[in-house]
């Protein structure tokens, strides 16, 4: 029999109760949060059963669901309406915003009311193929039931080795990460069926949740710790309205109309496109504002929110540039960006909940400015990438003499300039923040290093253009290449090279085939433009 331990941990191997599966043996598997008082959850159950029993008929059921939506609960460090909790939980557990097309609130209330039935339902998402194989689920089984996980024990057997690895702070493989994710879903579901819901926060300084207080609070409708009515109403409204979904359709419509304007020069298309763009922008701003008010924190604090902020800055820049150049191309590019990015924000596996921020990111002015500036700087660069594609299309279609090229080229150049200034400023602000928070303004962390690489690339391009080494097509190709570097900074580092900035991103994720297809397409496009430019340069004038 061999015992393994690393020399750093010394000779002792006393099993401390810090590993979750050991700590919580025998009672519950929830390792994340302290257990709530039993009295409280049974109180809540009574409440829920009351709601359900009052309304046996379907039409009335809807009313009771409505009533429950606005109940404030404590979840993941924030007080939020039950409606938000339901949406986040269903999304987390099943991997999609709705389970069988049902309202998430109805799903959650049903789980609370009939835990036994739901234990048998294949409800927990297993998105990662190799993990399905490990659990012997069959290739097409995307969801597994709670009771199956318990009865086969395959998941539980995989855990101790992973936890041990985590304790040695070793990097986990993708399979191990996905295993922990599934375990986390299992724990969340377990919490749900054992009715571990937390209603109402305790007063500051007190950890105990008192049933008496809860009753009082529910009777009075509000108390010092109970969130204001308008807050709950607003969050439920925000959840239901899905402003970014509306905004992305409006952006798409605006982009189509603006393209029509560019091709046909009809006045009504410009007006309609412009007003749709404005409408999309307003919806977009309203959505961001709602998140800021509800979360009581700056607009960008997780990956999802960067995907909202980037097109917002792009739209602002487009509005500014349109005032100067009045061509419609900037608005078109920003609208394209808005529709694509907001679509991606909803469809990539990102956490869209309004969650509290980790300690190091809290209440810091420099940090807020730094993040807004850096993510903001991605906007002009991405805008430049869209313009570079337009340039490429026109160049491939009509050659160097195409009438649109000079203006598109100029806009592209302006966008890069703004991007370089903002990125440089953002990096420097990051240095100032890092110095204020960690005492070092530069640490060669992968994220900051890649931001610098992106900046150096565009600086090299600007200088090359300045002395005439790079002409229009070269700038377009270089911009698309620079956009790849930006993708690496923005997306790649967080998911493939995790460093100090890991709080901004996630862990290793499988490389999506769609991304590979996109990159291949881009490379072919760049090659086509470059080939034509080289051929044109060789031809004697």
């Amino acid at each position: 029999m061999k015992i393994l331990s690393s020399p750093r941990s010394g000779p002792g191997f006393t099993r401390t109760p810090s590993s979750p599966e050991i700590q919580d043996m025998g009672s519950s598997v929830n390792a994340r949060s302290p257990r709530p008082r039993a009295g409280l959850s049974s109180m809540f159950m009574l409440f829920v059963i009351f709601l359900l029993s009052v309304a046996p008929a379907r039409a009335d059921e809807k009313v009771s669901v409505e009533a429950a939506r606005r109940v404030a609960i404590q979840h993941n460090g924030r007080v939020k309406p039950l409606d938000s909790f339901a949406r986040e939980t269903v999304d987390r557990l099943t991997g999609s915003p709705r389970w069988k097309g049902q309202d998430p609130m109805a799903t959650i209330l049903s789980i609370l009311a009939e835990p036994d039935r739901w234990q048998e339902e294949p409800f927990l998402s297993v998105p990662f193929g190799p993990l399905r194989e490990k659990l012997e689920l069959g290739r097409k089984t995307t969801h597994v039931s709670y009771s199956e996980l318990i009865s086969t024990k395959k998941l539980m057997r995989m855990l101790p080795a992973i936890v041990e690895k985590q304790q040695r702070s070793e990097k986990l493989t993708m399979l191990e990460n996905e295993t922990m994710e599934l375990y986390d879903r299992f724990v969340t579901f377990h919490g749900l069926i054992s009715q571990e819901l937390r209603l109402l926060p305790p007063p500051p300084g007190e950890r105990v949740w008192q049933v008496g207080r809860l009753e009082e609070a529910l009777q009075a409708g509000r108390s010092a710790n109970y969130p204001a009515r308008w807050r709950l109403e607003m969050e439920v409204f925000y959840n239901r309205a899905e402003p970014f979904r509306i905004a992305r359709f409006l952006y798409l419509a605006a982009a189509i109309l603006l393209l029509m304007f560019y091709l046909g020069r009809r006045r009504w298309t410009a007006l309609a496109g412009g007003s749709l763009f404005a409408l999309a922008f307003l919806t977009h701003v309203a959505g961001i504002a709602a998140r800021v008010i509800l979360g009581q924190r700056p607009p960008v604090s997780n990956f999802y929110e960067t995907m909202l902020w980037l097109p917002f800055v792009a739209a602002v820049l487009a509005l500014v540039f349109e005032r100067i150049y009045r061509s419609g191309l900037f608005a078109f590019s920003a609208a394209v960006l808005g529709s694509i990015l907001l679509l991606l924000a909803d469809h990539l596996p990102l956490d869209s909940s309004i969650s509290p921020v980790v300690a190091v990111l809290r209440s810091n002015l420099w940090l807020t400015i730094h993040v807004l500036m850096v993510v903001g700087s991605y906007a002009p660069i991405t805008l430049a990438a869209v313009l570079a594609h337009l340039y490429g299309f026109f160049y491939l279609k009509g050659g160097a003499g195409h009438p649109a090229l000079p203006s598109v080229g100029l806009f592209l150049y302006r966008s890069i300039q703004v991007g370089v200034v903002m990125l440089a400023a953002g990096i420097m602000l990051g240095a100032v923040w890092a110095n204020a928070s960690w005492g070092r303004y530069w640490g060669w962390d992968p994220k900051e290093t890649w931001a610098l690489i992106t900046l150096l690339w565009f600086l090299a391009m600007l200088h090359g253009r300045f002395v005439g080494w790079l002409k229009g097509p070269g700038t377009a190709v270089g911009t698309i290449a620079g956009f790849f570097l930006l993708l690496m900074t923005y997306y790649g580092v967080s998911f493939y090279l995790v460093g100090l900035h890991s709080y901004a991103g996630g862990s290793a994720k499988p490389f999506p085939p769609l991304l590979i297809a996109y990159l291949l397409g881009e490379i072919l496009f760049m090659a086509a433009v470059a080939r034509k430019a080289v051929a044109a340069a060789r031809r004697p004038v």
Partner: protein
Amino acid sequence: MVHPFRLIGSLRVAVTLLIVIAGVLAWGTIYETRFGTASVQRFVYQSWWFQGILAFLAVNLATAAFLRYPWKRKHLPFLLAHLGIIMILTGGILGGRLGVEGQLIIPEGESNDTLQMDRNVLVIHQPNPGIHAEFLTRFETTAWDHAPHALFEAPLEEGPLQVVVDRYYPDAERREEILDGGERENPAAHILLSHEGHEDDIWLLARDRDRFGARWGGAHVLFLEPESEKELKSLPPDSIILARTEKGELSAILTDSAGKRKTLRRIQIGAWYTHSSLGYRFQVSAYYPRARLEESYEPRGDEVRAEALHLVARQGDRTVQSWLGLRERVGLPFGKHPVLVEYRPASRELPFSVKLLDFRKIDYPGTEMAAAFESDVELNDPERGVSFKKKISMNNPLKHRGYSMFQSSYVPGPVETTILSVRKDPGVPLVYAGFLIVLSGVTLLFTSRARAA
């Protein structure tokens, strides 16, 4: 023939440098995923050749600026941008050379004035007659080299001691095997535990005060060697206690939550027993009265995370070999007095001491997610006759005599330990001024040209 200055200050060189630097950095981040942060810092970012490239960029920018002398008004944005970058580069190189960076690790109620640095040293130490030799090592810089053959020499009383590090494992796995047939009495028992599909196994050594017991789930699992019944008088509740009688037999005492006991005599090797109130099942799968430990190290990978060295020490014709992990020390039997060899992070004295009065982790309500970390400290500077108290929290450092102390992390436990990162960087003002100048220069450059166009 281009004039050498024109070449050095040319745009061709500048653009080449920018792309070379970008390429090196991209490679560095990939290198880091393989060998770890400590390795890439020393092998790439702080290496003389990379700093050399950066210095060359500064020279290139300065030459480019001087080539345009006498300067005119239109050169202003260009000059500002270049001057700013030169200041940032100079400040960075200066800070790297003259700055201090380390960690101050203080348990609650204690005081510390010694920084732990991020480089490691090999220390050869003979307490009597007080010989102390310290060597800065750089094994982690070339973490792929598992056979470095580095030689360290210390003058001892009886003649020079040569220590050769012939193996270096950046991520060593310590393997320990417990075998029967040792020279001395050393009772060891291998215990299997099982509950609702969770299974675990553990070796308990009755005579090792670090390893005679463990906690598993809600239970204490202990292996005791009582000399009389008296010693078993007070036992913890919810426990599985294996006791070795004087005759060498094993019995088990099970206590419930109220401390009520049940004794199982003559435990059979390989048979399952049940703790009735906890529902845990256990068995003793092996029992060695004279156990011996055999240890070895195996390399697990190239990423620097759990370093271990193998030493061959030689004095005259005597040779001793040993393994040595980071933060460990071994005694080598040479001469009259023992020689200690230690591999640990380098340390550095601060001109003042910091005492940790209290450490607090403040959570978001209802979770264990930290919202804030705070350390109440007392700083004592006898040299300057200063003593004061201050609260250090995230983004809120303590500054004294050019040193800044930041809340970095903490070690949980009954006595919490705070970890402050300490930094002194004389390059910062130059770098900050550089930031402002660059930004104003670039903004001026683009706006003036936009106006011209």
